């Protein structure tokens, strides 16, 4: 055994940990013949004796009772706070505007059918120039926006018309044509602000008269079961945002 080996084993020896008897004799034998290691061994023994004296002295020491008391108080407060802050999930109030949903669904179906119908009937429309579906806006300017877009290629009969919604007054009855009377726009989605809509498209559709009832409107006395005309505002995503009825 050399001094390095001794250094690695001296702690085990001094702390009286389990050690092989032969190994123990080897360590002690080296210490007996090596003055620095003997000095190291005595120093380590003295230190461990001192450590044990300190441990025995401190063995009974613990935090005073007021620390325990204050901690228990803090625990109670924390538990109370945690319990108060625990969110009990309330049953979700299903504020389903089923009437609006029904109208929206009916409109979507009608718009889809109208679109299909329009695609199939596009050629005759272009030829005749008569529009069964017209883009309508409520600017009060007669048909200025409902007319086909005239681009460079002069595509006749093109119906896609984009209008800023700020030009769509919702609360004033007005006429789009001399013979038509329209209602205000009814939003079809909750919380929608029609004034903030951008790039909307208005599409003329036909709906059953019962759709008026769903919105709290009275159908015409002489047309209770027939179809009614309506203008549907579509967003850029193609979803209906609002509707107004045309008479």
């Amino acid at each position, binding site marked *: 055994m050399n001094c390095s080996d001794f*250094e690695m084993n001296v*702690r085990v020896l001094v702390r009286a940990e389990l050690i092989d008897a032969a190994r123990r004799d080897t360590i002690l034998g080296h210490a007996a013949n090596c003055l620095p290691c003997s000095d190291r061994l005595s120093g380590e023994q*003295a*230190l461990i*004796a001192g*450590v044990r004296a300190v441990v025995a002295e401190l063995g009974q020491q613990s935090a005073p009772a007021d*620390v325990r008391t204050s*901690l228990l108080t803090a625990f109670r407060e924390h538990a109370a706070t945690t319990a108060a802050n625990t969110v009990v999930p309330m049953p979700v109030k299903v504020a389903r505007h089923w009437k609006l949903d029904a109208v929206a669904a009916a409109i979507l179906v009608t718009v889809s059918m109208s679109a299909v119908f329009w695609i199939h009937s596009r050629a005759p429309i272009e030829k005749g120039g008569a529009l069964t579906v017209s883009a309508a806006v409520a600017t009060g300017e007669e048909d200025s926006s409902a007319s086909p877009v005239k681009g460079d290629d002069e595509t006749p009969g093109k119906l896609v018309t984009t209008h800023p919604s700020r030009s769509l007054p919702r609360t004033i009855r007005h006429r789009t044509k001399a013979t038509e009377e329209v209602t205000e726009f009814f939003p079809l989605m909750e919380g929608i602000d029609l004034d903030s809509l951008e790039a909307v498209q208005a599409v003329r559709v036909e709906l059953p008269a019962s759709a008026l009832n769903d919105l709290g409107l009275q159908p015409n006395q002489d047309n209770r079961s027939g179809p009614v005309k309506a203008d549907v505002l579509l967003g850029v995503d193609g979803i209906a945002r609002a509707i107004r009825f045309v008479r």
Partner: protein
Amino acid sequence: MTPTTLSDAELLRLMVAGDENAFAALYEQHQGAVYRFALLMSGAKNIAEEVTQDVFLMLVREPQRYDPARGSLPTYLYGVARNHVLRSFKRERPYVPLQEDREDLSDTRFIAAEDPLGDYSRNQLVKLVRQAVLSLPERYREVVVLCDFQEVSCADAAAALDCPIGTINSRLHRGHAMLVKKLRSVARVDARSVDSQALRCFA
């Protein structure tokens, strides 16, 4: 089953669920070790009390910080206590006395060459060792306190102090060497003091 017979993990689970008895049981089981660790590290009872309170307060408020995968609860508590002790050192460093108070060690007699501490009384020995420990640099002190005084294994000490076991071993070895050197130097000074008093007495 009483709280004292439950494991730390079970007590912790109950404590998180709001069981005050479980928290009290956890506190009773571990407060002594935390308090003594802080006391040996700082040498001040007020710091030890404050650290003990802070450690268990953190356990109450943020129990999710303890990760059983990283070690036992005592190991975690030692780690938190160590951080609080070091924080208190930074906070109170401006008020630490400039000179070590060694008045308690000046009345020693008859120091043997082989066993430098052999002739100290038990109380003197305790004071001497504690002061020597307090004079160690913090990184050695925390390892010596944990492994020697608290009898924590090197692996657990490594987990508590968040460093490799090899570092713990080397710091422990170095810390012991520094302690022995300090204790011997104190003993020599005291022996010289005794000799000079004897000379003056006979002069």
